């Protein structure tokens, strides 16, 4: 996004208060969402809860394709769509809500540095585990990632995504790492976070910041997700203050709130809440590889993809 566009967007955002019907989109909780996406979604939910901004969690099988950046989660506020934690923090700040305003310059630098640490190590490790560890790929990632789509689309999309992530891993030098090395990195990262947190309730003492939201999103997801082995969650469980930190944020911001936004619910809920029950039917009716992208766009107004026109065409034909 260009600077001008961004400034314009911020101005627009500042003009309107936070609406009641703000929605956060992510993939289906029970059957589809992957570890890394769930962590990112939970981080944004925690952040919005900490800002005391209500948001309704909406699950869509095609959330990834609806997002302007191709990544989940994204929020739909008023007539704007913003995806990923960083831009959402900016967007919310433009509306006058910020968690990090009370920090001094050095603390802000520190907060940014730790957020990059989480992205650089925890997120990359999650992606590595779910797309580069062959057993996990076969047993968990492919079945879940392709679950909303019929054969052969499920395989095609899964392999496409896998190829993309593996190229990224190769570019940043992670492709040559073994699982043990990756787990060691996770351990190192957790150790750093644990030492930084110490005995404080939040990373910057009394008040939560976006760093707390991000760390909570990742660690809570790692702790509560059943993978093939427990190696990853064991690494986190070694650090008592981090698990206590996760429990504290869960109790404070998620328990007793609405069912949709609850983190605990994300681990428990069995329903495909608000997902499109007819989606599979639509697939089988119009399925051709070219049609796939068309049908994936449920929200053409926010979709910038080339198939935009195609969607309108489909709608006209109905």
């Amino acid at each position: 996004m260009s600077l001008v566009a961004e400034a314009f967007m911020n101005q627009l955002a500042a003009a309107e208060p936070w609406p009641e019907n703000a929605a956060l989109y992510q993939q289906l909780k029970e059957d589809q969402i992957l570890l890394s996406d769930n962590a990112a979604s939970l981080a944004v939910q925690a952040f919005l809860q900490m800002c005391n901004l209500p948001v309704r969690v909406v699950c869509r099988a095609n959330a990834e394709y609806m997002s302007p950046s191709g990544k989940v989660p994204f929020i739909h506020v008023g007539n704007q769509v913003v995806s990923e934690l960083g831009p959402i923090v900016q967007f919310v700040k433009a509306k006058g809500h910020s968690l990090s305003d009370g920090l001094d310059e050095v603390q802000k630098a520190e907060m940014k540095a730790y957020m990059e640490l989480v992205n650089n190590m925890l997120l990359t490790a999650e992606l590595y585990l779910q797309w580069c560890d062959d057993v996990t790929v076969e047993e968990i990632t492919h079945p879940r990632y392709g679950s909303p789509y019929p054969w052969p689309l499920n395989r095609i999309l899964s392999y496409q995504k896998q190829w993309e992530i593996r190229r990224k891993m190769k570019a940043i030098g992670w492709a040559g790492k073994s699982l043990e090395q990756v787990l060691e990195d996770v351990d190192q990262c957790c150790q750093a976070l644990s030492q930084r947190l110490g005995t404080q309730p939040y990373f910057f003492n009394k008040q939560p910041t976006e760093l707390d939201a991000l760390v909570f999103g990742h660690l809570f997801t790692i702790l509560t997700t059943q993978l093939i082995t427990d190696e990853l969650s064991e690494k986190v469980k070694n650090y008592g203050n981090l698990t206590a930190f996760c429990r504290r944020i869960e109790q404070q911001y998620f328990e007793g709130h609405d069912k949709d936004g609850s983190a605990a619910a994300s681990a428990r809920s069995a329903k495909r809440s608000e997902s499109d029950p007819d989606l599979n039917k639509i697939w089988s009716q119009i399925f051709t590889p070219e049609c796939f992208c068309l049908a994936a766009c449920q929200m053409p107004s926010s979709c910038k993809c080339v198939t935009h026109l195609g969607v309108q065409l489909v709608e006209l034909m109905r």
Partner: protein
Amino acid sequence: MAAPMELSCWGGDWGLPSLHPESLTVMAYAKFSGAPLTVNTINNSWSTPKADVPVLISEDTVISQPAKILNFLRKQRYNADYELSAKQGADTLAYIALLEEKLLPALLHTFWVEAENYCSVTKPWFASRIPFPLSLYLPGKMSREALNRILLTRGGPPLYSLTEVEAQIYRDAKECLNLLSKRLGTSQFFFGNTPTTLDAFVFGFLAPVYKVCFPRVQLQEHLKQLTNLCRFCDDILTCYFKLTITGHSPSGQDTADANLQKLTQLVNKESNLIEKIRLSLFLCRWMTTFVRVLSTPLGR
């Protein structure tokens, strides 16, 4: 005592011990921790390694990648972080992640992707240190890898064109420099008066931006406004590398090198010029044909 350790890394210029951020990081850490490394700068003979530089060789162990080399040095009891608390150790890790995520893409871009910089400085400099047929291939490969890394990690929607990605990575890099400047404040090093691992990394990333004379210098311009970071680089260069600079490169060879470089730059510029002339000739020819085609129906 410990076995002798040899470090192979890219050499220096413009008053730097090395032009290569990773090499510079390891060299700085070795100085800070007092590790007795024999530094072999890469020259255009076939005997020195070219891939995965810097490489540390100690007896029969060969280690590449700065983080692993630093770990190895720590195991050999050359540790610059003895006096750090656990929290400061955690901070070190976090700031290194910040450098890698925010500053590295712009640094790679300045060196390897920005066409003018690459053609007139980076390519001739690296090519002159690589033996002949390989010198035609390796710089291009390094450039492609850099571009690939930038696009894969930073590209993708909603940033569709390279210019948009460029704007974003330079914005991130400038923000990162500001954060580092604020973190450093007025203290000599990041954790007080003795340099540590973090100082080695920051120095490794900043010094090339600060010292290398490129035609396009938007990052350097920004860095030069942050006086405490510049002072930080200058301090390390004068306190820890002074002897090496005068000791390592005899002035005669330096001027010869500089001449060679100017020559290669000239040749490169010429070839660019030729390319441009060729293009404009082609365009002229194309235009005339176009005009001719247009004028045919008019003539009838």
